[in-house]
């Protein structure tokens, strides 16, 4: 319900005025070809990232786990970049390689974070920071080495850019978002048990390894498609699940699907601001989410 209201609001706002009562042909084009796909894409990206964040937090028992902070988003971004450089005309290569990049980053961070002493909050965050910065450096290096003209657009896109939304891009992202949310919600009972501890969860009959694989795989899919469509929109997977938990408790069967809805609303709102604040110029939506997200992150870190 809230989401519907937000979507409606977002569709009504933009750098060009559209009167819903008497729409001209011109305005119809703007609304349906430009604004609507962008708003809907924002919703999908928000939902995907929030759900990925919620399930990663549950699986890793870490309130600071989140695709952007763990370097998963950067892995996806690097995958997208490589796809753009080497398979320029094969558009599907981008989400596929983004998914691969996200998956690799996830595995690397996870392995790094598991020490013999076990995994704790600080260790995971540290591993995430290392992987994120390492991948960032590779991205910057590639941008510098390859032809500047071709990759100029990337710098803006890397900060999160929904302006390249198209209907075809949207179909893939919404399919992934819906599939991912369903898959992860199905694991939420197991995730609830795993939050007590992996050993205890196994005693309860949870196939921990399988759950972990599902969560990693699905969240990589979600992050991969989201990043391939709109670049790195950070902190969504961090803030949204926590907001939902504050309001509705920690039961993952509620948190995971609700994160999808709240995540969608969050990104749509951030993007609406990004494209109206200095209209007709645009701000990168990732910058807006980071402006909100970083202080929230600090707050959570201190509370931990």
């Amino acid at each position, binding site marked *: 319900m809230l989401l519907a209201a937000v979507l409606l609001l977002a569709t009504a706002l*933009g750098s060009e005025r559209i009167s819903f009562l008497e729409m001209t042909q011109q305005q119809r084009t703007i609304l349906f070809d430009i604004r609507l796909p962008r708003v809907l894409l924002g919703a999908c990206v928000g939902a995907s990232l929030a759900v990925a964040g919620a399930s990663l937090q549950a699986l890793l028992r870490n309130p600071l786990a989140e695709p952007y902070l763990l370097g998963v988003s950067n892995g996806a971004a690097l995958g997208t970049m490589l796809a753009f450089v080497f398979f320029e005309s094969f558009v599907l290569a981008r989400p596929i390689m983004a998914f691969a990049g996200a998956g690799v980053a996830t595995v690397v961070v996870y392995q790094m974070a598991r020490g013999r002493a076990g995994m704790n909050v600080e260790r995971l965050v540290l591993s995430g920071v290392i992987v994120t910065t390492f991948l960032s450096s590779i991205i910057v290096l590639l941008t510098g080495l390859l032809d500047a003209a071709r990759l*100029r*657009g990337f710098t803006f896109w890397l900060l999160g850019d929904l302006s390249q939304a198209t209907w075809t891009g949207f179909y893939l992202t919404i399919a992934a978002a819906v599939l991912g949310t369903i898959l992860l919600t199905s694991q939420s009972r197991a995730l609830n048990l795993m939050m007590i501890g992996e050993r205890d969860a196994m005693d309860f009959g949870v196939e921990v390894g399988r759950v972990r694989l599902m969560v990693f795989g699905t969240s990589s899919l979600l992050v991969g498609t989201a990043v391939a469509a709109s670049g790195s929109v950070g902190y969504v997977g961090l803030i949204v699940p926590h907001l939902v938990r504050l309001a509705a408790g920690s039961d993952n069967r509620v948190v995971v699907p609700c994160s999808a809805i709240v995540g969608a609303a969050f990104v749509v709102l951030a993007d609406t601001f990004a494209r109206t604040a200095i209209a*007709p110029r645009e701000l990168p939506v990732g910058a807006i989410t980071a402006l909100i997200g970083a202080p929230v992150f600090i707050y959570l870190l201190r509370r931990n």
Partner: protein
Amino acid sequence: MSLAAAVLLALTFACDKPDDIAKSTDAGRFIKDDLGREVRMPLKLERAVSLAPSITELVFAAGAGDKLVGVTTYCDFPAEARSIQKIGDTQTPNIESIIALKPLVVFVSTASQLEAFAKTLEEQSIAVYVVDVRGIDDVPNVVRQIGEFFGTLDRANSAADSLFKRMEAARANGTTTNRPRVFVQLSEEPLFTIGRDSFLTALIERAGGLSATGDLPTGYPKLSKETASALHPNVIILSASDDNQRPNDVFRDSPAVKTGRVFKVNADILSRPGPRLVDALEEISKDLTGGGSGTANLSVPK
């Protein structure tokens, strides 16, 4: 014979050797550069470095290209510039290389982050002079001034006169009534265009058109597609680079695309505030009056 010997002797001592050149900066004069900074310009400027492709082109136009000892990796025009030693690029110049070349002056554009290296260079007795070409009108004057610095004033004056004549001719040929609305697309996705702080906005006006985005603040804004689709430009100019070969899809119903008035212009002459701005002016002016070699009937694939 003793007179000849005396003359020969005098000539020998009069010839400057590289180390003497450094000392002769003490005989320089203090002038203000384009940013109002005090710069000690040597009386004889034999060795200089350019930190921007536009500056390299200006120096060559002034007839002093042979006095450039260092240029950036992007300085590719004129052809002679390619064989000059490269010392990095505008944003990250290699200070060690510059110092090793023993220039007397380093000419930088406003795109360089001065503070980082100005002090280091000045400690090595290398002056840093900022060149700021804000619009095409500045070009002939800057060429003359550079000619004065390098002692090539005659060549610089004739180059400046020729540039000025070409500018006047283009203005005369440009349309004054029914100025077409022109959209300059710098990149297709994301959509970047020119705003009021860009020198191209005034150039479009000189060429007889009116930039559709001339009132946007900043120089090179990213434009919302909604606003773009409501612009209805009569002419679209594409700054021809790999990522900018077609007009953005939002323009598919624009008069420009429908009447085939979409023109590609060399990206370098549009982005370098130097003598080739006059080339850009001539080309755009021709395109706007219908005599140009544009890409007619450019279709937007979907």
